[in-house]
């Protein structure tokens, strides 16, 4: 066989199908159609159809291309070139994407840009909602804690004109809630009443005065209590505190020499403190007794209850201490 005769010219392949070249190669090799049919396990009419590029009676294109590949290999031709010629006459270069079933309008399932943007918007809105809810929840929880960096520093809060000024340094027990300070980990329900007590400036409810505003570290000061001018204070807001409430109240002053996990709850089980307090801080708490206290590292804590020092060693097991304090 003259190999050069079997080499297909690309120029010709553009106009002539693969059948002509298969026919020519077969005749050059003096093979009969029947011989080829036996080799390829086809029937002679199928071989003839392949040589005439007539695929109307042939099965699906996958099979036709397989037959052409086998036929080309049998005759020593390049299967790739024969298949390329077939692709050109059938104008189909992409046999890997043959439709598996008749498809009408193909539904596109992939989310489009608009849907993706909508998804992003919903996600952002959901996150914003959660953040708003969280912040809103914290704002609704007034507390009565003052945190001071120095134990000796006077912690006071300015009260309206005419109100009395009482200091935390006063060793006398404070029977009523005083300071209106918001700290996120602390909760107290009695605060609206406490605010009125403070503004009433009665002796029963000693308030905290502020001598040096710069020394006071507070957060979320309740606007109702201390900042409004006297003229704006309606008389209705002044409510006498019941005596029995005052007798239930207790004050804690805790100084931290070392950082310590602290869990303090009042009589109703509310968490007044529930976090690690860093070393060097002093916190003052007031609330309804009895207090339930837990210190994770009691060695570094100095505790005073209603002005009296409490020896934590009696309540310490290992490094932590658990105790209850009542009036």
């Amino acid at each position, binding site marked *: 066989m003259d190999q050069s005769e079997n080499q297909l010219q690309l120029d010709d392949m553009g106009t002539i199908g693969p059948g002509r070249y298969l026919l020519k190669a077969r005749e050059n090799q003096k093979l009969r159609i029947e011989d080829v049919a036996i080799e*390829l*396990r*086809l029937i002679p009419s199928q071989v003839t159809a392949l040589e005439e590029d007539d695929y109307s009676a042939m*099965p*699906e*294109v*996958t*099979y036709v*291309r*397989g*037959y052409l*590949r*086998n036929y080309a290999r049998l005759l020593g031709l390049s299967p790739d070139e024969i298949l390329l010629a077939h692709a050109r006459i059938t104008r189909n270069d992409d*046999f*890997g*994407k*043959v439709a*598996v*079933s008749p*498809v009408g309008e*193909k*539904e*596109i*399932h*992939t*989310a489009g840009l608009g*849907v*993706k943007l909508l*998804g992003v918007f*919903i*996600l952002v809105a959901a996150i914003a909602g959660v953040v708003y809810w969280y912040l809103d929840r914290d704002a609704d929880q007034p507390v009565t804690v003052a945190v001071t960096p120095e134990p000796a520093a006077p912690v006071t809060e300015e009260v309206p004109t005419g109100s009395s000024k009482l200091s935390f340094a006063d060793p006398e027990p404070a029977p009523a809630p005083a300071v209106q300070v918001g700290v996120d980990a602390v909760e107290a329900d009695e605060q609206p009443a406490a605010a009125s007590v403070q503004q009433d400036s009665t002796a029963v409810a000693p308030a905290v005065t502020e001598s040096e505003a710069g020394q006071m570290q507070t957060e979320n000061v309740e606007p109702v209590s201390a900042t409004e001018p006297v003229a704006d204070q309606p008389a209705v807001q002044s409510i006498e505190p019941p005596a029995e409430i005052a007798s239930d109240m207790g004050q804690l002053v805790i100084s931290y020499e070392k950082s310590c996990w602290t869990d303090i709850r009042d009589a109703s089980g509310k968490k007044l403190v529930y976090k690690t307090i860093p070393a060097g801080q002093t916190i003052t708490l007031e609330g309804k007794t009895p207090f339930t206290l837990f210190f994770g590292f009691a060695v570094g804590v100095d505790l005073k209850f209603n002005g009296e020092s409490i020896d934590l060693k009696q309540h310490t097991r290992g490094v932590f201490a658990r105790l209850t304090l009542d009036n």
Partner: protein
Amino acid sequence: MLKRLLGFFSHDLAIDLGTANTLIYVRDKGIVLNEPSVVAIRYSPMGGASGKSVLAVGQEAKNMLGRTPGNIKAIRPMKDGVIADFSVTEVMLKYFIRKVQESRFFKPSPRIIICVPCGSTQVERRAIKESALSAGAREVYLIEEPMAVAIGAGLPVADPTGSMVVDVGGGTTEVGIVSLGGLVYSDSLRVAGDKFDEGIITYLRRQHGVLIGDSTAERIKKEIGAAMPNSEIREMEIKGRDLAEGLSRSVTLTSKGIYDALADPLDQISQSIKVALEQTPPELGADIAEKGMVLAGGGALLRDIDRRFMEETGMPVVVAEDPLTCVARGCGHALEEMDILGDVFASER
């Protein structure tokens, strides 16, 4: 709900989770990943809670096969077409899914179609499904491999005509006859590419007294492997360990010898094909006899394997276009036309 939301940022995937290679088809994009199903694990006291950490996945891990120190293991988590190591398969799937998803900001949560051998048990199918779900899939659909091959090869699966496919993969050979969107007959044989490699290793040990590894055996199969005794003769020189002396030794192999090594597994596949033809209803048998069968999978690239099956069955045998990706393309088409081809998916039975 969250998974549905994240689904907006994920492309649906079709996965050919093969014993040898894993291919991933992404909707509207085509095949975007073709990597060996191998994971390299490092064992160390610092490697997390279980003392294990993933060192490499895919081609990089395959390069380590047989070349690892004591504290590293290169694992093929799939065996015989099904999961052999659940946790490692999950790690591998997670890695591949993450790799093909464009969005790095959101955790991908795609719908996934995975092909399973038709002979796999309910437990094996459940394991594959669970593994994909654990890897982050939102929904998982299973499709049997012969059906995926038929779709991928462009056969008329929905028509009332019989089409026969043979997929010679890495772990299993799948034989199936498809008509009217369903499998009329299917059989799964746990003899395929891996058994070819084992046959070559055994042949070299017995005939030449030389020990070689899996990677060398695979290279021999690809370069000079042949399925017919009268195939064109090719030669190749390899190096292995002499079993008697323990030293490295060179051996020159011919394709004739490798044909002998492959004869047993090829005979088993031929037998399976003949059984399938025997079991086929006569009408479908006539269709198949007229059109022939379609070969796919990596095994279809073995030289003259189509000629061998042609001689043994007396039917035309054609090799599918790009047989290595045929299953993945079929899964991909099923993914694209999921609603139309709803009944081609397999259940866990």
